Each structure stands twice: as structure tokens, then as C-alpha cells.
């Protein structure tokens, strides 16, 4: 009866066996593997040469870029512009500080068990924007004022995306609640608002915001261009956000609403204390995904003449001093975006996995 527990038969671990199991388990898989492998090998070498081996990384002037490889020197020389735009050099510590705080509040979100992770996240969503609002434009607390037309580069990209997402969230929540309202008129307005904004391309929205808006406003009333672009992006984004939040609201079982009502909570308390905290937590991955989409779409502000990181690169590749550095420039931009987006998408996938198995009632 006391059967000794036998250990499992040794799993095949040898690489050959692994390959047989994972790469060559059927004849068509073998074919696929060979074909794909061939393609990989033939395309990797030239790419590697261009990016690293033949590339020029340092030097003084465009003429130092010789050889077949990439001219990373160009990025190197213009990096300041790509990151800060026209922001005055002696004031760039302000931006650096913001970058640092941004990293400090969000990078820990990837690290399980980082101390005060939650508080850092909350600081990132509340304190950081306020600090940014004071620091970046300056003009108060003895800081030199830097008008928005001097902002640019990666910093502008981040500002646009950041404000876009966090300003859109509350509006999106209101729209989502409105769309589930029992009042037909309110519901109707919300539906129309959401559907219209979701249907039009961001290009047209930005075009309207940047050059047409004064036509719609009373004489003399005007906002700053960056602000208008932000309003356009925010409204556009809020329509998407509303749909994400609505998904979360729909996922909350009716019992939660009923239990809250039975306890005597009114509509706003019920929503604020019971429903929204659960619904929002449920849709964090969706929110992050919209963030990624928005982050990439900020490249379109180029079209309205704001020099975000892509705009900055494009405006320098027209510089007669540099020739044929467009590819390097675009690769650099692509890499910047990829790093941020990939980070966020990983984060959202982890979250999704966690929420999937996490405690649920």
C-alpha cells in the first residue's frame, strides 16, 4: 500500500530532442522551419552590418560619415534637438527632472513588489501633472518662462500623450456613464458624440483644431495652439476611452448595483465607491492599449506644424548640411516609439494575465 512515490520519467532536454519536438515535429513544420530559418539568416547579416558593423557612431561633422553603414553620428549630434526641441539649454534641467520623475513613478509598476509602488503610480497620475504644469512652462516660482512654441521633440510627444490620456479619462468616464444613462436624451448625445469622434481621422480633428478653430469662436476669443491640439486630442481620445470604460461597466454584475442600492447609496456614491473602482480596475489593460494607440498617433501633430520627435527629425533631414540621413532619422524615431509602446504593451499584457487569475468573486 505504501507505494513509494516514483519520480517522473526524465523529460527529454537535449537540444536535438527539443528541436525535434518544437521545430521538426511534422513534415510541414520542418519545411516551414527551414524556409523561415533561411530567410532569417539571409536578411540578418546585411542588417547587422548596416546597424552596427559599418556604422559611424562618433565624429564631428557630416563628412565623418563615410562607409556603407548607418550614420548614427547624425542622431548623436542632434539628440538635444530631438529630445527637447527648442527648449533653452540652460533650462533643460527642468525637463530632465520631469523625465526622472516620470521614470520613477512608472518604471516600478513593472517590478513586482517594489516598495510603495502604488503610491508612486498615484503620484505619477496626480502630482506629476501638477508639477509639470508649473515646471515646464515656467513663469512662476522664479522660473524663466518658456513659451510653448519652444517645446518640441520627444518631450512634446510625451506631454501630448500624457495629457491626452489622463485628461481623456474623466471625460471618457462621464461619457460612458452617459451612454448607459436611463435618460434617452443624455444617452443620445453621448452616443452621437462618441460615434462621431471615433469615426473621423485624427488628422482632420487636428486640422480643425489648429487652423479652423478661431473661425468657430467669437471674435477675440482664442487659445494657444498647443492647447487646442491638446483639446482636440483629448476629446478624440475620450470617445475611445468611453468605450473602454463602458466595457468595464458592463462587466460589473447587476448584483453589485443592487447591493449598493439596497444599502441606501445614491447614484453618484454607488458609482464612485462601488462600480467605478471595480470597472476601472478591470479595464486597465484596455486603457493602456488606448494609451499606446494615442502615443503613436501623436506623430500626426507634425501635420499641424508642432515639432514632436518625428517633426524634429523631419525638419533636420531637410537641412542641406546633412545628406541622406533620413533613414537613420526615421529608424531613431521608430526606436523611440517602439521602446515606449513595447514597454506599455508588456505591462498591459502582464496585467491582463494577472487579472485573469487574480481574485475574483
Amino acid at each position: 500500500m505504501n507505494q513509494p512515490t516514483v519520480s517522473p520519467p526524465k523529460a527529454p532536454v537535449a537540444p536535438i530532442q527539443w528541436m525535434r519536438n518544437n521545430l521538426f515535429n511534422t513534415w510541414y513544420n520542418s519545411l516551414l522551419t527551414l524556409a523561415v530559418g533561411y530567410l532569417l539568416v539571409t536578411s540578418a547579416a546585411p542588417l547587422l552590418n548596416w546597424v552596427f558593423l559599418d556604422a559611424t557612431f562618433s565624429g564631428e561633422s557630416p563628412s565623418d560619415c563615410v562607409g556603407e553603414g548607418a550614420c548614427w553620428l547624425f542622431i548623436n549630434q542632434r539628440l538635444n534637438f530631438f529630445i527637447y526641441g527648442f527648449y533653452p539649454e540652460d533650462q533643460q534641467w527642468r525637463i530632465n527632472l520631469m523625465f526622472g520623475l516620470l521614470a520613477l513613478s512608472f518604471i516600478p509598476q513593472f517590478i513586482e513588489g517594489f516598495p510603495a509602488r502604488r503610491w508612486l503610480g498615484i503620484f505619477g497620475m496626480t502630482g506629476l501633472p501638477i508639477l509639470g504644469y508649473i515646471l515646464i512652462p515656467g513663469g512662476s516660482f522664479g522660473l524663466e518662462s518658456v513659451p510653448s512654441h519652444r517645446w518640441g521633440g520627444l518631450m512634446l510627444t510625451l506631454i501630448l500623450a500624457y495629457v491626452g490620456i489622463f485628461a481623456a479619462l474623466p471625460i471618457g468616464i462621464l461619457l460612458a456613464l452617459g451612454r448607459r444613462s436611463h435618460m434617452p436624451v443624455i444617452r443620445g448625445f453621448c452616443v452621437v458624440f462618441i460615434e462621431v469622434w471615433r469615426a473621423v481621422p485624427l488628422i482632420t480633428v487636428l486640422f480643425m483644431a489648429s487652423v479652423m478653430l478661431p473661425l468657430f469662436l467669437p471674435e477675440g476669443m482664442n487659445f494657444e495652439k498647443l492647447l487646442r491640439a491638446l483639446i482636440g486630442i483629448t476629446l478624440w481620445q475620450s470617445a475611445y476611452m468611453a468605450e473602454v470604460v463602458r466595457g468595464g461597466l458592463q462587466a460589473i454584475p447587476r448584483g453589485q448595483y443592487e447591493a449598493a442600492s439596497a444599502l441606501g447609496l445614491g447614484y453618484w456614491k454607488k458609482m464612485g465607491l462601488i462600480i467605478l473602482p471595480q470597472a476601472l480596475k478591470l479595464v486597465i489593460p484596455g486603457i493602456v492599449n488606448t494609451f499606446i494607440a494615442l502615443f503613436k498617433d501623436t506623430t500626426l501633430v507634425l501635420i499641424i506644424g508642432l515639432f514632436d520627435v518625428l517633426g524634429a527629425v523631419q525638419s533636420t533631414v531637410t537641412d542641406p548640411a546633412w545628406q541622406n540621413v533620413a533613414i537613420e532619422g526615421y529608424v531613431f524615431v521608430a526606436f523611440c516609439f517602439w521602446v515606449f509602446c513595447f514597454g506599455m504593451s508588456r505591462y498591459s499584457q502582464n496585467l491582463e494575465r494577472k487579472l485573469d487569475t487574480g481574485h475574483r468573486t
Partner: protein
Amino acid sequence: NTTLENIREKGHLQCGVTSGLPGFSQPDDKGNWTGIDVDTCRAVAAAIFGDASKAQFTPLTAKERFTALQSGEIDMLSRNTTWTLTRDASLGLNFAGVNYYDGQGFLVSRELGVSDATELDGATACIQAGTTTELNMADYFRTHGMEFNALVFDTSEQTVQGFAAGRCDVLTSDRSQLAALRSKLTDPNSAVILPTIISKEPLGPVVRQGDDQWFNIVKWTLFTQVNAEELGITSANVDEMKSSDNPSIQRLLGTDGDMGEKLGLSADFGYNIIKEVGNYGEMYNRNVGPGTPLDLERGLNALWTEGGIMYAPPVR
């Protein structure tokens, strides 16, 4: 409120320019704009504030420029814009003069062996969006009974990239641009600029209709620069010239008469323009003239006294 009052209130002049066109308007990576269109704006700012740095620039693509001006987004448009009847009459805009006389030309690949535009039948042309170039091309080919394909790009960068990649046989643009665009090619010698000029392209600053005072200010800023060149006033000698006893110079620099007040400006607006920006010739040579990357001869843009057509009404 008049435009001038608005500008004074804001404390700066908002000026629409291209987002990057060498010689006309281009930012460096410190955010300093240079170019002939930019200098025109700065001259107007100098006329109003006595300080050329009070001009701020809004980069615009071709298709945004008129809407931006109409809507009041910018105070003036100085973005190598061709003066045409339609634009003057139906867009609600006024052209305040010409700061550069241009004409449309062609850049073709040397290996095609073309020496004249009439040999271009069936060609594909790279054109930059939203310019009169598109219309001129269509007219030119139609009148010569030729066919062509128009490939329209949004920015000059993409236009030249498309040409460089061999997407089109010919790149057409204002001649002033062709040299600069050619210099962007890996091998500038692989392309030639054809001698043919198919259109008149008077480029100049534009303002909204309905504010004649503002219209006059922009117009006379330009004229002041041309007159200054004619009178031999430069930014270097303008202080000495202030004590000149030539009545024309005295009126221009505001040491005599009330020319400034008539425009709603200070008396010495002319002095400020020259002091801060220089006369037309200086502006030209600094931005597009010989020795600059564009390396353009004065040609039509020389003073009327020197065989060109730059001619300004008298300050009187």
C-alpha cells in the same frame, strides 16, 4: 479691434511660414528661424515694435496656410505664396506686395537626356501639394498637347525623396527651390535644372481683407526695404544716414515728416526696419544670394535701376 491693436496687445506678431524651406524659412535646432520670408515678418515686427525679435512663427503646410490666415490663427502669411487673382479675390485675402519674383522650372535626371520642357511628354512629375505649381503644370502640358502624371506630395522633403528614388522623371517647383532641392540629392550632378520657365510666380506676404491699415503696414514695410536699397541705406550705415540731408532719406527714416503716424506706427518705423533687418538687397543676399546654399543671382529681383523689376512707390 484692428489687427494692429491686437498685435500690440499680444506683444508679438504671429507669422505663418513654411515648415522648412531653405532660404525662405527654416528653423535651426535652437528654434531660430532664417530666410527671406522670415525676414519679411521680422521687418514688419520691427516696424511695429521697433524689435524684430517680436515676430513668432507658425510653420504651416501649403494646404493649411490660407485657412490659418482666414481664421485669424496668424496675422500675416509669408510663405512663398504666389499672388493670383483667385487668391486675391475669393479667399478673403490681400497680397501686400512681392518679396521675391520667381518662376516655375523643372529638375530632371541627367540620364534622361532632356534639354527642354517640350520633350517631357508622358513624364511623371513630383509636385509639392497645394501650390500653383499643380495648376501651372496642367496648363502647360495641356497647351503643349502633352500628357503627364502628377504625383503630389505633402512636404518638399518627400517630394525630393520621391524624385531621388526615381519615382518621377521630373521635379517641378519654383526655380528658387530647384537648386536647394537638387543639393539634397546624393549626387547633385545627376540632375539638371532645365532653362524653361513656365509661369510667373510673384511671391509675397498676404493679409486678411478688411483691415486696410494693416494691409498698408505690411505693404509699406516691403516698400521701405526696397526704397532703402535704392537710397543706399543699409543696416550698417543707417545711423549715419539719419543725419543725411536727402529729404527722401529723412522721410524714410522718420527724421522728417509724419509718415509713421499715417500708418499708425511710430515715426521711426523705417529706421527700425533697416536697423533690425536691413534693406531688401541685404535681406536677399543674406538668405538666397550668391554664397548661400541657394546661390541665386538677383535676376528679376534686382532693383529696376539695375535691370530688375524691384520697384517701390516713393515715400512721400
